[in-house]
């Protein structure tokens, strides 16, 4: 029953506080009166009797406080009155309060925004059932660290890897929703077992049936939630309806939940919105693992996702795959290219690459918060200095040390509330900033919002900051000896010096933290510069790109496709400001490219190795538009039309690999197998273009025109990216280029409108994001530390003005006085710098995998950090130090 009384007591305290206070007062008055009577009966005068009674009772107010504490909820009321008192006290000092609030708001805001991002990107559960037992399956061999599966591999793994409960394939493409306003969207083709593997059921309708997932099955589609809402108004009767997609009638069988994404669809770009059956042909392609597996491995073009069997882990699956691959290699499957297959847990796949970036940035933001707390603690210490008399009077009047501490904690709590409120405001802006600048590789970052957990985080952070910033000043205040304080008349000695030491320590710690941040930022700046210094092989300046596709419904043959591109280019070229125009199958740094098996006359590949070449299909004008220079021979142009002899341009790596010591111009290259009739003649060599990423190895590549490639090997490119070069702002061309395309064929959807510069930046978005974030936080840290140094030097100069006056009177020059006070700031800076460098040396190692062309202990970066920090320290100290130099001995001494 104890809890009941406790509760009743607390409730009583809450409800009947006024009455309880009156009762307490009456009860104590009764006691004193009775005691006074008793003392008078012993013969004391009334005045003496009362004094003795009071003395023996002890401090009335203190005991009252203790009684209130025992009521239970009393602490709440005390906190409330403390808070009201603290708020009033803070509002009386707007300058101090504003400084502390802004400092805290910066720290809390940045931390909260970053936490919001982290939560969405790293912590939000994936929209799958038991995602921990879902893995993505990959193949890899020389030159391909992580690439698609072939059909045969899928069948093999499905049959022979017991760790997989089930494994399915999917691939992605793009389709057009036809109609008055055609819409180009990303699409996927997937096995019917993909949804069961992921543990997802459609929100409406059903998944594909096994019959539909077969060659020549019914043409059915599942819609993404987005396009269902957007294009069909969320109409539930959509199920069973036939809609025109890329010129074909498709039956809608299902609508997927809004949070659904395929495991490869977590980037920030456009989402997949139409899902078709993959309908692989077992009869045509199937082979069980063994001698009948094609030696060359056939086409690798599928993503694979598997659900692990109960009890199996990614590691067991990997081990079983290793054993199976070893067995296949004995039959000669993909031999001598280091072929292997492996799984990656889907969670790691989706967040693994960004996790270190985000954690490092979050670490940086926590540093900023700590610096902010240290700064506010410093401010509170200074304020404590000027309030020592007030505190001494309070103690003398009977406020216990606990009471005093509470009051000071209340003050920092109120500050934290101010700071937290403004901080949440800043976090809203911060999240907007991150959403606008974050790399699209950050999964789901666009969905970042400040929900209640993030708010809770902000509140907890604010409280933590209040405690962190308030505890030291409060403890310092409780050390106060009232008698000495009051006797002396407020000229503090020992405590004041202890406080100064604390402030100095705080400032040194701030500088140390700032040094770490600035070092990290410096390393990232160097990395990003190194990345941008990599010659991508093309010139991105002034290039606008957009994706266009020519569906077979309206462009049934390649003649019409080629004619379309010729006419588009003619009309776009006529737009004022356009210098060059061309088109290409895949834009560099925007996509990954697979290869085509070749035969190069005069080159024999090593045993069991092919002669792969990345295939890039272009229209005349592409090379000029992208500034890809010919090193030998010529680039492809209008001459290379459908009727002309088949001509190709190859990159330098192609020459180095397949024309070792031979003249490439005039060399003959066959596309496809030995029976292929697609024999091209090399007419030119161009610089290597970094296609898959700035930092990956360049592979042999060839270029052919869309016209000739349609003739041999007979592959008509339906989807191409238009590239337009201008000397001005490429964005200004968007409207006229669109108009030109519309004037030619208004039915064609235009998508992925971007500048080439954006694409290049996007490809290094991770490092750039880290650089920007660390840069911002590094500068913030430096500014906060500078404020700290400024404050401490000011305080020293002010507290030693008397001494300076004496020194000046004894003949010290202003210069000497300035140096003297400068030294006080520099000592902290040196200590902080030294500590910071040591911490940085230890911590920057964590960044190794984010760095490019620079070591975590890069001497240049560290040297720059030392110079920058030293400069900031001196700049922050110089102002207050000058004041020391201006000390007028006469005034100081006479006022003393």
């Amino acid at each position, binding site marked *: 029953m104890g809890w009941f009384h406790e509760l009743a007591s607390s409730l009583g305290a809450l409800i009947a506080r006024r009455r309880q206070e009156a*009762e307490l007062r009456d*009860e*104590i008055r009764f006691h004193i009166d*009775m005691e006074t*009577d008793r003392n008078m009966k012993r013969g004391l005068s009334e005045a003496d009797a009362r004094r003795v009674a009071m003395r023996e009772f002890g401090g009335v107010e203190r*005991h009252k406080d203790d009684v209130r504490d*025992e009521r239970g909820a009393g602490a709440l009321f005390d906190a409330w009155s403390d808070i009201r008192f603290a708020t009033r006290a803070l509002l009386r000092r707007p300058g101090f309060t504003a400084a502390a609030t802004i400092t805290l708001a910066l720290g809390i805001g940045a931390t909260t925004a970053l936490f919001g991002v982290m939560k969405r990107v790293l912590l939000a559960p994936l929209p799958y059932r038991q995602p921990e037992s879902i893995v993505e399956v990959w193949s890899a061999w020389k030159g391909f660290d992580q690439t698609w599966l072939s059909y045969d591999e899928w069948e093999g793994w499905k049959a022979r890897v017991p760790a997989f409960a089930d494994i399915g394939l999917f691939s992605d493409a793009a389709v057009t929703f036809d109609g008055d306003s055609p819409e180009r969207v990303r699409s996927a083709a997937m096995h019917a077992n993909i949804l069961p593997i992921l543990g997802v059921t459609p929100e409406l309708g059903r998944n594909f049936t096994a019959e539909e997932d077969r060659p020549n099955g019914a043409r059915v589609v599942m819609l993404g939630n987005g396009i269902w809402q957007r294009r069909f108004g969320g109409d539930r009767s959509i199920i069973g309806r036939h809609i025109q997609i890329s010129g074909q009638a498709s039956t809608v069988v299902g609508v997927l939940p809004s949070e659904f994404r395929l495991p490869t669809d977590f980037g920030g770009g456009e989402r997949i919105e139409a899902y078709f059956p993959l309908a692989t042909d077992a009869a045509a392609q199937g082979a069980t693992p063994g001698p009948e597996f094609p030696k060359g491995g056939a086409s690798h073009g599928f993503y694979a996702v598997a659900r692990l069997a109960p009890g199996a882990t990614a590691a067991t699956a990997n081990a079983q795959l290793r054993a199976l691959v070893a067995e296949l290699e004995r039959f000669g499957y993909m031999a001598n290219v280091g072929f292997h297959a492996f799984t990656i847990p889907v969670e790691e796949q989706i967040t693994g690459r960004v996790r270190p970036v985000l954690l490092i940035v979050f670490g940086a933001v926590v540093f900023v918060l700590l610096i902010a707390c240290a700064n506010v603690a410093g401010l509170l210490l200074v304020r404590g200095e000027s309030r020592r008399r007030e505190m001494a009077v309070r103690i003398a009047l009977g406020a216990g040390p606990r009471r005093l501490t509470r009051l000071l904690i209340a003050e920092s709590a109120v500050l934290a509330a101010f700071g937290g409120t403004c901080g949440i405001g800043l976090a809203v802006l911060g999240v907007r900033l991150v959403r606008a600048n974050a790399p699209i590789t950050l999964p789901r970052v666009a969905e970042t919002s400040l929900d209640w957990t993030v708010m809770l985080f902000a509140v907890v952070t604010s409280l933590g900051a209040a405690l962190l910033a308030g505890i030291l000043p409060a403890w310092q205040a409780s050390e106060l000896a009232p008698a000495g304080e009051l006797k002396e008349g407020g000229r503090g000695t020992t405590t004041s010096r202890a406080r100064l030491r604390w402030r100095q320590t705080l400032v040194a710690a701030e500088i140390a933290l700032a040094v770490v941040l600035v070092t990290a930022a410096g390393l990232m700046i160097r990395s990003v510069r190194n990345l941008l210094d990599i010659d991508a092989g093309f010139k991105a300046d002034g290039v606008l790109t957009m994706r266009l596709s020519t569906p077979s419904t309206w462009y049934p043959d390649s003649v019409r496709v080629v004619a379309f591109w010729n006419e588009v280019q003619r009309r776009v070229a006529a737009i004022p400001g356009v210098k060059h125009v061309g088109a290409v199958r895949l834009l560099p740094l925007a996509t990954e490219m697979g290869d085509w098996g070749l035969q190069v006359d005069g080159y024999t590949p090593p045993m069991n190795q092919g002669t792969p070449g990345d295939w890039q299909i272009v229209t005349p004008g592409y090379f000029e538009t992208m500034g890809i220079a010919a090193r030998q021979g010529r680039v492809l142009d209008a001459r290379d039309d459908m009727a002309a002899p088949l001509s190709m341009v190859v990159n330098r790596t192609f020459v180095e690999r397949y024309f070792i010591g031979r003249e490439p111009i005039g060399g003959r290259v066959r596309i496809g197998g030995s029976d292929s009739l697609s024999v091209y003649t090399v007419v030119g060599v161009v610089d290597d273009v970094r296609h898959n990423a700035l930092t990956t190895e360049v592979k042999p590549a060839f270029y052919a025109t869309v016209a000739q490639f349609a003739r041999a090997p007979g592959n008509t490119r339906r989807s191409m990216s238009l590239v337009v070069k201008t000397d001005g702002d490429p964005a200004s061309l968007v409207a006229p280029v669109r108009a030109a395309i519309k004037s030619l064929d208004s039915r064609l959807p235009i998508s992925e409108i971007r500048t080439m510069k954006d694409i290049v930046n996007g490809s290094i978005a991770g490092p750039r994001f880290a650089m920007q974030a660390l840069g911002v936080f590094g500068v913030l840290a430096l500014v906060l530390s500078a404020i700290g140094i400024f404050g401490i030097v000011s305080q020293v100069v002010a507290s030693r003005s008397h001494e300076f006056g004496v020194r000046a009177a004894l003949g010290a020059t202003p210069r000497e006085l300035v140096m003297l006070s400068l030294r006080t700031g520099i000592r902290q800076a040196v200590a902080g710098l030294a500590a910071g460098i040591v911490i940085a040396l230890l911590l920057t190692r964590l960044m190794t995998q984010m760095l490019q062309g620079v070591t975590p202990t890069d001497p240049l970066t560290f040297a720059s950090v030392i110079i920058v920090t030293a400069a900031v320290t001196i700049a922050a100290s110089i102002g207050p130090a000058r004041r020391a130099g201006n000390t007028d001995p006469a005034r100081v001494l006479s006022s003393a």
Partner: protein
Amino acid sequence: MDALASQRAEVLRGTLEMLALTLLSDGPMHGWGISVRLREMSRDVFDVNQGSLYPALQAMLRRGWIKAQWGPSENNRRARFYSITREGRAQLESEISEWQRSSAAVNRVLRLAFQGG
């Protein structure tokens, strides 16, 4: 504030509560009454601030060991009378037996020590 005094008050708090409970087990008393009786009984051994009694009483009220009621005092003034509850009596009994057990143990140890020395 005298740090030593506050420490002693902390130590004595439990004892103070027990003594007050003992007094109240004979009948309702007001705070001052308890204070006077404590001083008489212990012959001023318990030299604590009289004011310390009130937080102790409040704590026992909160735990439900005693209850309080306003009523006329011996000189007809309004006073707050405390009386022990059933829970208070149970608490007192368990404290007394606990006390007896531990003091018996201490006695044994002391006796052994003196015999040995």
